[in-house]
């Protein structure tokens, strides 16, 4: 039986530990949990915040479609995807994927697949706002993201 993924698109932060526990607590069939957390980087120290714009409705729908595909391709016991929107400060969380399975390869591959497809298909756009006050700029899509998604 295929599990029903848990998908959230939200303004608030998330708690990776809580989400991971939600997929393992009280059950004995989970042998492997892989979590991916994406954070807002700022190595240059020039960023005041990332602004995450999204397409409400389609963002949830697309994440559900990608998650459902993952749950059909791999024997998972649980799958959670949370993507934040709004202003996100450097060092803060942006996205979380938690994949649980009886076996480690399924958990790794499902989480990896999910991030690749989320990057190229989920309707979110990042705009960088700078400390200097200069005009914010939209982050460009990376060619590497398309080739990552093409691996599957």
């Amino acid at each position: 039986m295929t599990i029903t993924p848990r998908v959230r698109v939200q303004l608030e932060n998330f708690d990776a530990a809580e989400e991971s526990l939600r997929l393992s607590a009280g059950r004995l069939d989970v042998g492997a949990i892989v979590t991916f957390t994406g954070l807002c980087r700022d190595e240059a120290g020039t960023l005041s915040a990332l602004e995450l714009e999204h397409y409400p409705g389609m963002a949830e729908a697309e994440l559900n479609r990608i998650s459902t595909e993952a749950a059909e391709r791999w024997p998972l016991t649980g799958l959670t995807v949370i993507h934040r929107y709004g202003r996100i400060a450097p060092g803060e969380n942006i996205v979380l994927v938690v994949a649980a399975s009886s076996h480690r390869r399924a958990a790794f591959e499902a989480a990896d697949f999910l991030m690749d497809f989320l990057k190229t298909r989920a309707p979110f756009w990042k705009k960088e706002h700078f400390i200097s006050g200069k005009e914010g700029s939209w982050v460009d899509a990376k060619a590497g993201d398309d080739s990552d998604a093409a691996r599957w």
Partner: protein
Amino acid sequence: MNIRYFAWVRERVGIEEETIEVPGHVETVADLIAHLKSIDENHASAFEEEDAIRVALDQFHVEQDALVAGAREAAFFPPMTGG
């Protein structure tokens, strides 16, 4: 038809959302884009780099040869950069 714009496409058009009458000759997404470009300078500028524009009909990704008949909402945006 309800039209939505996101990210820099939205900024160039200058609005988030609009409702338009779709002329009878508009069959595909490409036809719809050609029609939107004819509205004004802002629309024309938003769709200038046509290859950089992604399209969704009723919240599903589609290509430019997709038929628009029956769709209630079309959305235009740059390549996604979430995650």
